[in-house]
C-alpha cells in the first residue's frame, strides 16, 4: 500500500474521468457520484500520506519509480516530502469541496467532471513528482483543461474600450469568456515556454542524463547559468502564481470561470506556480535564487499591495476575490523570496491557507451569483437577512484573508512577515503588511455592501441560503480554515520538515552570492 499510495492519489481522478467517459451524458447522478468518489479517494490518500509520513525521518517518502523514456532519463518518479503532504491535503480538500459545490451544475456535467478530474490529477501529479520533466508534463495537464472549463461553463463579461491600447477591442472581445479563457491559456503557456527553456538548461547543464529532481538539486550548476535560468523559471512559473505584471489573466479568468473551477484554480492551481518557483527554481538553482531574491521579493511585495489596492475599487464580486488572490499569492512569493525558515514555512502555509480560504470564497461567490444572478456588488445589500449561512462563511473567509488569528491565513501571513523581517527585508514586509490591512478594508467593505444594511431589494427575489450538499463544501472549507488556524502544527510540522532539509543549501548559496545580488539590484 505505502509505496503505491501516491500513484493511487494521482491515478484516482484519472480513473474516475475514464469511468465517467463510459457513462451516458444524461445520467447526471452517477457522473456526480463518480466525480465525488474520485476526489474523495484522493483526499483519503492524502490523509493516509499525512498519517504515515514519518516526520522524524523526513525527506522523500513513499517513493516509486516507473521507467518512462529511459533514453532521455525521463522516469515517472513519485515521492512526497513535507511540502507535498501539505499540498496534497489542500488539493484533496479543495477538490472534494469543489465537487460538492458543483453538484448543482446541470449543463453538460459529464464533460465538466472529466475535465475537472483531469485537471486535478495534474495538480496531484505536480505535487508529488520528482522528475523535472514529468513535473512539467503534469503542470501542463493541470493548466490546459481550464480553457474548456471556462469556455463552456464560464460566465460572460464585458469591459468597455478605453485606454492606450484601445485598438485591441476591434478584434478581441475583452472581458468575454472566450477572451478570458484564451488569455489565461496563452499567458500561462507563454510561461510554460519559459519553463521549458529553463528546464532544458538545467537538464543539459547537469549532463543531459536525467531529469531526476533530487539528483539535480544536488548538482552544482555554474553561477552564470543559474543567474539567467532562475528568472526564466521565476517568470515562467510565476505567470501561474500571478506575479506582476503577468497576473492579468487571473482576474478575467477567475471572473469568467464557473464556481468549482475558480475554486480549484485560485485554490490550488495558482499554488503550482509558486510551488514550481520554490521546488524547481530555488532548490535546484540556489545561487540564482539567492541572487534574484531581492527582485523576487520586491515584485512580490508589489503584488501584495497592488492586488489589494486593485481589489478595493472592483465592483464585480468575482474580480474582488480574484484580485485578492493576486495579492495573497504575493505573500507566498514574498515568503519564498526571504530564503528564511519562517518565510518558507509561511510561503507554503500560505499556499495551503489561501487555497482553502479562496476556495471558500469562490464557492460562496458561486452561490451568491447563482441566486442573485448578479455579481455587481453596489446593487446588493442586506443579503445576510435571507442567507445568513452564506454571510457567516463569507465573513469567515474574509477574516482568514485579512489574517485574523484563529484562521489559517494569520499563521501564514505572520510567518511570512516574520521571515521577511528576520532575513532583513523590512522594506518588502512593510508594503506587504499594509497590503494585508488594505485587504481588511476591501473584504469588510464588500461584506458590508453585500450582506449588511437594508435589503435585499426586489431585484433579488429568489435568494435563499445554501442547500444540502452545498453546505458540505462550505463546512469542509470553513472547518479547515479554523482548524488549521488554531492548530497550525497539523500541517506546519510537515512543511517545516521539508523546509529544514532544503534551506541549508540555499542559505549557503545565499551567503556566497550576496555581492552579485547587489549588482543585479543596481
Amino acid at each position, binding site marked *: 500500500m505505502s509505496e503505491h499510495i501516491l500513484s493511487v492519489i494521482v491515478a484516482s481522478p484519472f480513473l474516475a474521468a475514464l469511468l465517467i467517459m463510459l457513462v451516458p451524458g444524461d445520467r447526471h447522478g452517477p457522473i456526480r457520484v463518480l466525480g465525488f468518489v474520485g476526489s474523495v479517494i484522493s483526499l483519503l490518500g492524502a490523509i493516509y500520506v499525512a498519517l504515515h509520513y514519518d516526520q522524524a525521518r523526513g525527506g522523500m517518502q513513499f517513493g516509486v519509480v516507473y521507467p518512462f523514456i529511459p533514453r532521455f532519463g525521463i522516469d515517472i518518479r513519485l515521492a512526497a516530502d513535507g511540502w507535498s503532504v501539505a499540498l496534497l491535503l489542500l488539493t484533496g480538500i479543495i477538490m472534494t469541496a469543489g465537487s460538492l459545490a458543483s453538484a448543482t451544475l446541470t449543463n453538460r456535467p459529464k464533460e465538466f467532471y472529466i475535465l475537472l478530474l483531469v485537471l486535478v490529477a495534474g495538480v496531484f501529479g505536480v505535487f508529488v513528482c520528482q522528475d523535472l520533466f514529468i513535473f512539467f508534463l503534469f503542470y501542463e495537464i493541470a493548466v490546459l483543461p481550464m480553457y474548456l472549463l471556462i469556455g463552456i461553463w464560464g460566465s460572460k463579461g464585458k469591459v468597455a474600450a478605453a485606454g492606450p*491600447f484601445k485598438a485591441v477591442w476591434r478584434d478581441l472581445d475583452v472581458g468575454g469568456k472566450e477572451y478570458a479563457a484564451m488569455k489565461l491559456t496563452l499567458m500561462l503557456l507563454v510561461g510554460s515556454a519559459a519553463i521549458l527553456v529553463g528546464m532544458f538548461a538545467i537538464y543539459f547543464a547537469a549532463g543531459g542524463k536525467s531529469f531526476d529532481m533530487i539528483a539535480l538539486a544536488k548538482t552544482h550548476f555554474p553561477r552564470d547559468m543559474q543567474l539567467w535560468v532562475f528568472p526564466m523559471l521565476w517568470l515562467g512559473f510565476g505567470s501561474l502564481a500571478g506575479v506582476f*505584471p503577468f497576473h492579468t489573466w487571473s482576474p478575467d479568468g477567475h471572473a469568467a470561470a464557473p464556481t468549482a473551477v475558480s475554486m480549484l484554480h485560485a485554490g490550488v492551481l495558482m499554488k503550482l506556480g509558486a510551488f514550481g518557483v520554490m521546488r524547481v527554481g530555488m532548490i535546484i538553482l540556489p545561487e540564482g535564487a539567492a541572487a534574484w531574491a531581492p527582485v523576487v521579493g520586491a515584485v512580490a511585495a508589489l503584488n501584495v499591495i497592488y492586488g489589494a489596492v486593485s481589489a*478595493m475599487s472592483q465592483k464585480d464580486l468575482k474580480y474582488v476575490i480574484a484580485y485578492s488572490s493576486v495579492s495573497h499569492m504575493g505573500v507566498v512569493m514574498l515568503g519564498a523570496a526571504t530564503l528564511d525558515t519562517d518565510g518558507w514555512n509561511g510561503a507554503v502555509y500560505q499556499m495551503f491557507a489561501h487555497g482553502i480560504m479562496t476556495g471558500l470564497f469562490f464557492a460562496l461567490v458561486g452561490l451568491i451569483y447563482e441566486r442573485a444572478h448578479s455579481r455587481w456588488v453596489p446593487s446588493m445589500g442586506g443579503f445576510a437577512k435571507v442567507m445568513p449561512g452564506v454571510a457567516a462563511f463569507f465573513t469567515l473567509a474574509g477574516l482568514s484573508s485579512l489574517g*485574523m488569528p484563529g484562521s489559517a491565513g494569520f499563521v501564514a501571513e505572520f510567518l511570512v512577515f*516574520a521571515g521577511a523581517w528576520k532575513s532583513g527585508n523590512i522594506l518588502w514586509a512593510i508594503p506587504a*503588511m499594509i497590503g494585508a*490591512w488594505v485587504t481588511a478594508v476591501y473584504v469588510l467593505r464588500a461584506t458590508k455592501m453585500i450582506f*449588511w*444594511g437594508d435589503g435585499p431589494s426586489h431585484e433579488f427575489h429568489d435568494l435563499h441560503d445554501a442547500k444540502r450538499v452545498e453546505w458540505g463544501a462550505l463546512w469542509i472549507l470553513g472547518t479547515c480554515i479554523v482548524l488549521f488556524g488554531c492548530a497550525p502544527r497539523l500541517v506546519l*510540522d510537515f512543511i517545516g520538515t521539508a523546509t529544514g532539509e532544503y534551506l541549508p543549501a540555499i542559505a549557503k548559496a545565499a551567503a556566497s552570492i550576496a555581492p552579485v545580488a547587489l549588482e543585479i539590484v543596481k
Partner: protein
Amino acid sequence: MTLVTWALLALFVPLGVAAFIGLVVPLRRTGRPAALISVAGALVSLASAGMVLAGGSAALKPGVHATVGWLTAGTATAVGVHLDGTSAWMLLVVTLVATCVQIYSLGYLHDEPPPALGRYFTYQSLFLFAMNTLVLAPNLLQAFLGWELVGLVSYLLIGFYFRKPSAAKAAVKAFWVTKFADLGFLIGLVTLYAQTGGFEWTAVTPAATFVTLMLFFAVMGKSAQFPLHIWLPDAMEGPTPVSALLHAATMVAAGVFLIVRAEPLFEQAALTRDVMAYVGAFTALFAACVAVVQSDIKKVLAYSTCSQLGYMVAALGAGDTFAGYFHLSTHAFFKALLFLGAGSLIHAVHSNELKDMGGLFRKMPFSGTVFVVGALALAGVPPLAGFFSKDLILEAMHHHGLHVPLAALAIAAFLTAFYMTRTVMLALFGTPSHAAEHAHEPGIDMKLPLAVLALLAVGAGFLGGPLAGLTGHDYAFHFTPVGGAGTAIGLVGIGMGYFMFGPAQGGAAIKRGFAPVGAFIRYGLMDRLATVAYGIMLAVGAIIAWIDRYVIDGLMNWSGWILLVLGRRLRALQTGNVQDYVYAVALAVVVFGAWGILR
C-alpha cells in the same frame, strides 16, 4: 485542581459555549436557552477566575506558566496560560464584568428576535474567550492572538444591528482603524521575534524602543488614544451592554493591560514612556473636552472612556504601572456601571439623546442612584473607586516630574466632573421629556448587575492594597497635596456642572462664550480627515484598477493582438496569383544564389 486547570476552565468554557450555541443552529435560533447557556458559561468562567485568585498570592507570585508549542515545537512560539497576580486579577475583572453584562443583556435585549439573541450571546461568549486569551497570554504572540480576536468580536458586536447602515459603517470603521493600529503590534512582534527569536514579555533587546513604540501604536488604536480614537464614539452603535463590556470596561483597556504586562520591555524604552505620557495626557484632556459637548449619553460616556484611558496611558508613561493598572480596574467597574445605568435609561426612553431624558430619577430611582454613584466614582469623589486611582495617577505624574501632562490631567479631571454632572443633571433631573413620562425601572435581571457593579464602584478603591500585594507593588493610600488638589478640582467641576445644568441653569455667558468651541469640537476634524483619507484610498484604488485594466492588461492584450495584425498583413502577400507565388520562389532562389556565390 491546579491553578492552571482553573485558568483553562475560565478560558475554554466560554469558547465551548460559543462553539456550542454558535454551531448548533437550532439552539441558537431559540434565543433565550442559548443565552442562558452563555450566562452559565460566564458564571463558570467567573467562578474559575475566582478559584484562581483564591489560590492565593503565594502560588501566584512566582508566576505559573503552562504552554504548548503552537507554530513550532518548543517555547518560542508557544501558547498557553501565564498566571500571576496581574493576569489573575484581570481575569477576575473581565469575567466579573462580562458576567454582569451578560446577565444584564438578558433583560436589555429581551425584545430582540430569538435568532439575533442567540447570535448576540455567541459573540458574548466568544468575546470572553478572546479577552481571556489576551489576559492569560504567556507571551506577546498569544497576546496578539487575543488582541485581534477581541477586535473581531468588537466588530461583530458593533455591527450587531447590521441592517442599520450606521451600525454597519461603525463596525467596519472600528475594525479598520484598530486593525491599522495593529500593524504596529505586528511590526513590533516580528521585530521582537527577529531580535530575540521569541515573544517573551520579559525580553531584553536593543530594539526595545522601536518595539515598544510600535506596540504603543497598536495601543493607541485599541485604547482609543488620539488621533486613533475616532472609532470609539461610532462604536456606540452597538447594543449598550456591548459598549459597557467591550468599549468601556475591558476590551479598550486591553491596550493598557498590554503595557502593564510588557512592563519589562517598556522599562527599556524611556522615549516610548515619554510619548505615552504626553499622548495619554492629551487624549485625556481632549476627549474630556469633547465629552462636554455631546448630546448623546453614550457618546458622553464613550469620550469619557477615551479620556480615562488617556489617564491610564499617561500613568504608564510616567512609569507607574500600578497606578495605571489600578485605574484600569476601578474604571472597569464604574464605567461598566455607568454604561449599564445609561442602558437602563435608554431602555426606558428608547433613545440615546439626553434631550429625550430628563427627570428620570423620579421614575427610576434605582437606576438613577447607581448612575449617580458611577458618575461620582468617575469624578473622583472620595471615597469612591475613582478617587483612589485617579489620585494615584496624578501623584505619579507629579512624582515623575511630568508637569505638562499633570496639568492636562488636572484640567481633564475638572472637565470629567463637569460633564458627568452635566449628564446627570440633564438625564436624571430637570424637566422630563415626553418620552421620559412612561419610563419605568427595568427588571431584576438588569438591576442585579447594576447593584453588583455599583458596590464595586463604591468599594473597589479599597482593593488597592491587596491588588498591589498581588501584583508585587507597594501601595498604601495616604493623602498627598496633588491628590487632594485633584479631588478639589473634581469637586469644583461638580459644582460648576450643578451651577450650569442644575436647577439654576446658570452661566449663560459661559455657555455662549464657549459655543464656537463646542461647534468646532462637534465638527469632528479627525473624523473628517479619516473620511478624506478613505476617499483618497478609494480613488487610488480606482486609478490603480484602471491602470491594471487598460495599461498593464492592455499591454498583454496588445502583445497578442499585434500577432493577429501581423498575420493579417502577411495575408496580403498571398495574392492568389500563382505567378506571385513563383515570384517568392524566384526571389528566394536569387537571394540564396547570391548568398551561395558570394560566401
